[in-house]
């Protein structure tokens, strides 16, 4: 300290006797000296003095010296020592931390470092100056520059990130320092890069491009993987930054075979079990698990997740993770995180799920790992977070895997298999009816996931019978759940059962009717829905009850006499009222727990008491809420039949419609063909009748002409006759009579003819009309034919096979 004081003295000159200069004055003189002195030594000494003062008097040094110091960085680059002092001084005044020396000084604002940072970065060239100094090989200069940049980034990360991004080679220069052989610089650079990459995808990509993963894996392996020190953790934190929410980098990580390189991190030596885990190792492994989870996080794109999962299984990473799961001596928080990680590595990937299903625990007798995990889940002595993790892992195991869902339900069904061995199903049933409310919740939700989007298992689970008391007849699981729902006094258990029943009964009319047959079930739901208690959780219960009631109505196949669709609807309208009902239903989505759960498949609650709603249930609720309200408000149109179809496949309803339409048209077609046949026959009859009448007509005409000829032949005779009247009188009279007779006959025939002609005319008219009718019918027929074809095509496009109907040509 004496040396220091004397140093100050030499720089400042002897103070005037009796008058101690204030800090501000001292700083002013020092700054002047740095700025104006022509001697390098003087400037260096002044810088050293400024550095010494900057910890205690950073306001003064910063306010007066910042400009001068940055000038030093520019002009005195040749002298490493001076530069080093200047950098350290700048770092002190902009440091985000509070120094011991300034603790007693109340005048220093808390965010003084940040304020000076803001001033410093106003000129972007200042950052460039510091970046340029990274090229300096001198240890002190390089280290100070790295530390200064770290401080700047701590104070103003967003701004500095943007500035560095546009500086050519800015990021590259820092990446180069990772290869520095001096470990101190390498380690400080790691800290700098962690700050630099936080939340900036563009920088993350550049860092990855600059071979960051290679360098980091080199460091991690040289430090001994998970057994290494805090440097390993820093490397892993940086990797985590590069991968988080950055699909391009995840893709790069996968393509660069880096997943395979993670394998040694998870291989724990077998003999090290007794040694226990150092806190550093716990942190390291925790970070590694985070990296794995980032790669297969459910929030990533599906293709990325699936290809990463495949590689993880192929590379043996899943195997290693399962080994950690089953190893002894693993700290609880690592075990918890490993369970979560295994869950996400298998989620939705059938091969991985099968792999997990086949892992055996090294217990005696050997049990499937899944069973061992579930044992912890329903064990109230296990830590809460571990139990949550098991549930999540189990959900992932069941997710979109009909086989694993079926095999779980299978363990509950009466079968010939060995009864003595413990199965997952038995564990869940035990949990469902245990006195521990969390076990109830976990088990109900786990069972619910076995039914998600799986109609077959909903039916299968209905067959499950429970022997409640010795001597009494067994009751069905659904029956027991319904009774439990009515008897339970705990909110969490009730919520869980309501969720389970909702999942079970949705899209499953037989489950609905089984529920309706349980005495008191409907009454309980109605009472709950009507209940008027004011409490967030009570609101939730009311909403869930309303939801289940609506499911009972919507998926009702009218097979239970007293609770048909209509009677339940009437009950709801009368007892609850539509308004109240929709109000209660909407309470569910308003609940905090619902909104939390809907965000992520993994349960994110801190305390056991907060656990209420499950992610998959949110999905079910979201998809059904609108449908249910609509089905209650809209007057029934299609009746009950349309319900099962509407979910089985959306097209089957339409298909049925088309089928009936075609059937109708077939009938109509047949009817029309018959009509046409009749008309055709009538037409031929008329035609022949007409021909007959025409023939007789022409016959009559002939006769008529003949008669006319006879008459005309007779008339001249009459004219010649008067000459001998007397003689011929009698003859004439005779002829006259004959003529009269003939004339009569002619008149008669003419009359007949005109009658026939008239008949012919009407017949022709009728024929014409019939012909026209026939034509219309043919047109209609063609039309129908076309329609028929169209429907046939539609049917085919809907995937139905169509038998050739009796061809229309044959009919016509």
């Amino acid at each position, binding site marked *: 300290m004496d040396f220091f004081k004397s140093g100050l003295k030499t720089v400042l000159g002897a103070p005037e006797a009796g008058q101690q200069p204030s800090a501000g004055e001292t700083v002013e003189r020092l700054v002047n000296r740095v700025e104006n002195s022509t001697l390098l030594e003087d400037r260096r000494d002044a810088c050293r003095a400024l550095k010494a003062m900057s910890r205690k008097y950073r306001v003064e040094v910063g306010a007066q010296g910042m400009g001068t110091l940055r000038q030093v960085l520019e002009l005195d680059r040749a002298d490493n020592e001076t530069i080093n002092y200047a950098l350290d001084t700048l770092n002190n005044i902009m440091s985000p931390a509070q120094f011991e020396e300034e603790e007693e000084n109340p005048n220093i604002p808390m965010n003084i470092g940040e304020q000076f940072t803001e001033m410093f970065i106003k000129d972007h060239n200042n950052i460039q100056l510091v970046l340029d100094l990274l090229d300096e090989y001198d240890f002190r200069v390089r280290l100070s520059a790295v530390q200064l940049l770290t401080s700047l980034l701590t104070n103003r990360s967003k701004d500095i990130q943007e500035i560095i991004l546009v500086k050519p080679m800015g990021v590259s220069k820092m990446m180069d320092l990772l290869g520095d052989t001096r470990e101190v610089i390498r380690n400080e650079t790691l800290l700098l890069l962690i700050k630099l990459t936080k939340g900036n995808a563009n920088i993350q990509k550049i860092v990855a*491009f600059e071979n960051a993963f290679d360098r980091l894996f080199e460091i991690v392996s040289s430090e001994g993987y998970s057994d290494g020190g805090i440097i390993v953790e820093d490397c892993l934190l940086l990797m985590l930054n590069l991968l988080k929410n950055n699909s391009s980098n995840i893709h790069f990580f996968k393509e660069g075979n880096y997943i395979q390189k993670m394998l040694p991190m998870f291989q724990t030596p077998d003999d090290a079990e007794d040694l226990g885990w150092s806190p550093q190792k716990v942190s390291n492994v925790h970070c590694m698990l985070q990296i794995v989870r980032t790669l297969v996080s459910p929030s990533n794109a599906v293709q990325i997740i699936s290809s990463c999962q495949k590689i993880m299984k192929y590379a043996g990473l899943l195997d290693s993770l399962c080994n950690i799961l089953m190893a002894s001596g693993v700290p609880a928080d690592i075990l918890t995180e490993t369970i979560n990680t295994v869950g996400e590595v298998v989620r939705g990937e059938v091969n991985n799920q099968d792999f997990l299903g086949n892992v055996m625990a090294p217990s005696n007798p050997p049990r499937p790992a899944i069973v061992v995990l579930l044992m912890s889940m329903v064990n109230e002595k296990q830590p809460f977070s571990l139990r949550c993790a098991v549930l999540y892992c189990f959900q992932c195991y069941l997710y979109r895997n009909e086989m694993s869902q079926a095999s779980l339900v299978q363990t509950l069904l009466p079968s010939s298999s060995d009864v003595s061995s413990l199965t997952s199903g038995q564990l869940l049933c035990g949990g469902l009816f245990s006195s521990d409310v969390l076990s109830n919740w976990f088990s109900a939700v786990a069972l619910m996931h076995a039914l998600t989007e799986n109609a077959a298992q909903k039916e299968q689970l209905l067959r499950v019978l429970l022997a409640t008391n010795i001597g009494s007849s067994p009751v069905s699981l659904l029956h027991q759940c319904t009774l439990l729902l009515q008897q339970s006094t705990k909110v969490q258990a009730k919520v869980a059962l309501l969720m389970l029943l909702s999942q079970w009964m949705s899209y499953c009319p037989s489950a609905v009717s089984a529920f309706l047959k349980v005495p008191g079930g409907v009454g309980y739901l109605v009472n709950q829905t009507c209940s008027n208690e004011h409490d967030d959780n009570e609101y939730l219960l009311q909403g869930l009850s309303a939801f289940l009631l609506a499911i009972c109505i919507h998926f009702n196949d009218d097979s239970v006499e007293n609770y048909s669709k209509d009677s339940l609807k009437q009950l709801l309208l009368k007892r609850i009222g539509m308004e109240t009902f929709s109000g209660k239903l909407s309470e569910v989505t308003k609940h905090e727990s619902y909104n939390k759960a809907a965000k992520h498949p993994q349960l994110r609650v801190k305390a056991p008491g907060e656990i209420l709603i499950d992610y998959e249930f949110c999905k079910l609720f979201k998809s059904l809420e609108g449908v249910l309200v609509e089905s209650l408000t809209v007057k029934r149109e299609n009746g009950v039949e349309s319900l099962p179809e509407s979910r089985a496949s959306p097209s089957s309803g339409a298909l049925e419609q088309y089928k009936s339409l075609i059937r109708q048209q077939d009938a109509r077609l047949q009817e029309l063909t018959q009509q046409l046949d009749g008309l055709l026959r009538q037409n031929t009859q008329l035609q022949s009748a007409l021909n007959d009448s025409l023939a007789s007509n022409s016959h009559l005409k002939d006769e008529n002409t003949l008669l006319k000829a006879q008459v005309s032949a007779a008339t001249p005779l009459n004219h010649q006759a008067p000459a001998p009247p007397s003689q011929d009188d009698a003859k004439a009279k005779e002829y006259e009579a004959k003529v009269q007779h003939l004339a009569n006959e002619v008149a008669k025939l003419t009359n007949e003819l005109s009658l026939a002609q008239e008949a012919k005319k009407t017949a022709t008219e009728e024929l014409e009309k019939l012909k026209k009718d026939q034509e219309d019918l043919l047109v209609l027929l063609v039309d129908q034919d076309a329609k028929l074809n169209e429907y046939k095509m539609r049917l085919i496009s809907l995937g139905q096979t169509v038998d050739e109907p009796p061809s229309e040509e044959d009919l016509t």
Partner: protein
Amino acid sequence: MAYAYLFKYIIIGDTGVGKSCLLLQFTDKRFQPVHDLTIGVEFGARMITIDGKQIKLQIWDTAGQEAFRSITRSYYRGAAGALLVYDITRRDTFNHLTTWLEDARQHSNSNMVIMLIGNKSDLESRREVKKEEGEAFAREHGLVFMETSAKTAANVEEAFINTAKEIYEKIQEGVFDINNEANGIKIGPQHSAAGGAAAGGAGAGGAAGGGCC
């Protein structure tokens, strides 16, 4: 999985000339007529064979927009090859080549192989830049030239593979320092990769065995 060499490429050029489509055609063998603007940089990878050797190409597809120019500059230094792309139906994209080339030469290592690519050769009727002009520009600046169509896939394979061949030849000639990863070239971890694969297989086998029990 194992490769002899790994080359890093970048694709540069004006916005809308079809850089992302070229990459998609090369890595996925498909064409996407409507493509979102590339933001920053996107990554793609594929394995090819040259001279009987497996070579892994890691390709960074950059954003052509001026706003991202400073970001894309960071990728020049670490790349072994660059595809400089223009659009034969837009004269301005051809006119900007000089700027792109200056930028690339300034920030990259001097050995970087640059391939000049006139894309959209399927749109002959709307052509604004003659093939001869592209050839002349390439000759003048010492680039390899090719016209491609990301839509019909014409010459797309060739563009990427010929660039790789050129880099490969330079390695054979000893021009590239393959031990310096900043050149965008990596020697494959053949031995270690083979060992890793074997271990992985053994692990899987063991697991299957466990399943049987």
